[in-house]
């Protein structure tokens, strides 16, 4: 009988290391997934050891990226991760990307858990985007600010904000930042949470390389989004803010706008100002 091919051996061993059901069948004496020629030579103790070690590593990375989901799901977490890894096995050489498809998996597969925690998919997304931003490679160096404070009318008409490119915005159906804080702080799981739309901006600080999370109102979200996607000057952004708040006192809206800009500059979501071409 010819020896088994390298490919066949790798396929079989990968199955036994990564697929719990196939492994348990094999260890219990069934060879339905394993060619006889290979089965006779397999060290069952070794299969268990490697499977345990791989499983430990994959679970470790998942828990490090989704600590709040893990805390929320408690004893169910390990089983859910096993099922996720079975459905979405790691497909990238970057270990942390093992976790990338988990938010979608939660959204599409965990019906029972989402009935209990309807914000679960959004929470998973919220935890994942922090990881994504921590690792994000920027195409170019951070843009430089060409202006200190906004002091003259010309500054408003000629300059626009420099938006931190390491930034992701989300519109959630639940107040995710508040939920995350509650899970982190409390032993009790927030089950009866009312839906409430929230706009969240997550960005990486150029100073610390850590992520910051901002909960913003719809107007602020629109201003940040527009500043990122267009070359609108401060004056144009103010006009937009005023038109979005048509029923409010324009003076008040302008004051709020200036306060927002200062806040975003302090937090380094805005990295200064640049001349608008």
């Amino acid at each position, binding site marked *: 009988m010819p020896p088994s091919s390298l*490919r066949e051996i790798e396929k079989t061993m990968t199955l036994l290391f990564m697929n719990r059901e196939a492994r348990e069948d094999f260890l219990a004496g069934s060879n339905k997934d394993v060619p006889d020629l*290979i089965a006779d030579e397999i*060290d069952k103790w070794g299969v268990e050891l490697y499977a345990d070690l*791989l499983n430990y590593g994959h679970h470790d990375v998942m828990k490090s990226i989704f600590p709040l989901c893990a805390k929320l799901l408690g004893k169910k977490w390990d089983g859910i991760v096993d099922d996720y890894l079975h459905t979405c096995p790691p497909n990238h050489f970057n270990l942390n990307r*093992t976790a990338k498809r988990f938010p979608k998996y939660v959204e599409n597969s965990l019906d029972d858990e989402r009935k209990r925690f309807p914000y679960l998919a959004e929470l998973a997304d919220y935890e994942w985007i*922090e990881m994504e931003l921590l*690792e994000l490679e920027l195409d170019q160096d951070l843009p430089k600010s060409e202006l200190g404070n906004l002091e003259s009318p010309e500054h408003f008409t000629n300059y626009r904000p420099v938006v931190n490119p390491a930034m992701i915005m989300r519109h959630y159906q639940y107040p995710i930042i508040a939920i995350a804080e509650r899970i982190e702080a409390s032993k009790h799981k927030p089950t009866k949470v009312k839906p409430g739309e929230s706009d969240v901006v997550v960005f990486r600080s150029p100073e610390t390389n850590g992520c910051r999370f901002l909960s913003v109102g719809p107007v602020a979200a629109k201003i940040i989004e527009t500043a990122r996607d267009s070359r609108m000057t401060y004056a144009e952004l103010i006009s937009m803010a005023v038109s979005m708040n048509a029923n409010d006192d324009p003076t008040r809206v302008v004051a709020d706008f200036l306060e927002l800009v200062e806040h975003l500059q302090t937090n380094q979501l805005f990295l200064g100002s640049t001349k608008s071409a």
Partner: protein
Amino acid sequence: MTGLFADIKKSLPNLGVGLGLRRELAGNTFENADQIDWLEFVPENYMGLGGAARERLERARRAFPLVSHGINLSLGSTDELNPEYITSISKLLDSVDSPWWSDHLCFTSYGGTYMHDLLPLPFSHEAVEHVAKRARQAQEQVGRPLLIENISFYMQMPGHEMTEAQFLAEVLEKADCGLLLDVNNIYVNSVNHGFDPYEFLNQIPLERTVQIHIAGHSHKNDVIIDTHGASVVEPVFALLRYVLERADVKAVMLERDQNFPAFKEILSELCEIRKIVKETRPQMLQHRDRALPEVAGMQWREEKSKGREHAAVLSA
């Protein structure tokens, strides 16, 4: 040793005694740059990444010679070489001007699934041919000398036709590559599989050794696991000395990936290694007039530890 590698090796620099660049150790590593000659980094922790990882690597590049030691080239995999991986690692190696790069004699992926650990290959003639061909391909595509490292393994794979030493020797000769010799892995395997580590060393082409890894290990029931999470034991230091007395090695590196002790213990192990190198292969330390601009005593803030770094070790 036949082939081109003999000539290539002559042109490789002596780096001395180095340490792994690890997120948890970065601050101490930079602060003690005067006691560390070079750093090894795991490329998967930096390929295509920005933020803290990129900044850490850039700081390291300015302070130390850097060498890449990968996990997921997956030399033994029967999948095609991953073009994204090759492109990304080539770019990274160019950016830090790594004089060589290394990966393991194992497979870490199959059918597009990455297992993120070092899985042994069958010691078969087919695997020799396969790995040697891929190593030549990878080396050619990346354009820098590739070293292949012997791994710790805990089970014999089906289809084996030779010993580990024969397998390693044949792969190195057919691939015409350099060797990254891990003396702790030899020790671990010798205990777990019951062979004489010195006999092993006598059976492999030691003259291909460019770099040595030395590390500690842990005990799990009746086996020793290569965890890089403990101090180096005396028999492993003895293997290091044995190799250094016989091969023109360019660099020795202490691996420490978990269960981190006080940094002074790591420095003390580096001192012990340096003492052995000085006694056996002093020319490896000749580069030590390296200037240390801006790094001695450099402060480094702690990094957020979300996510995990790759390490060339099984978790245990």
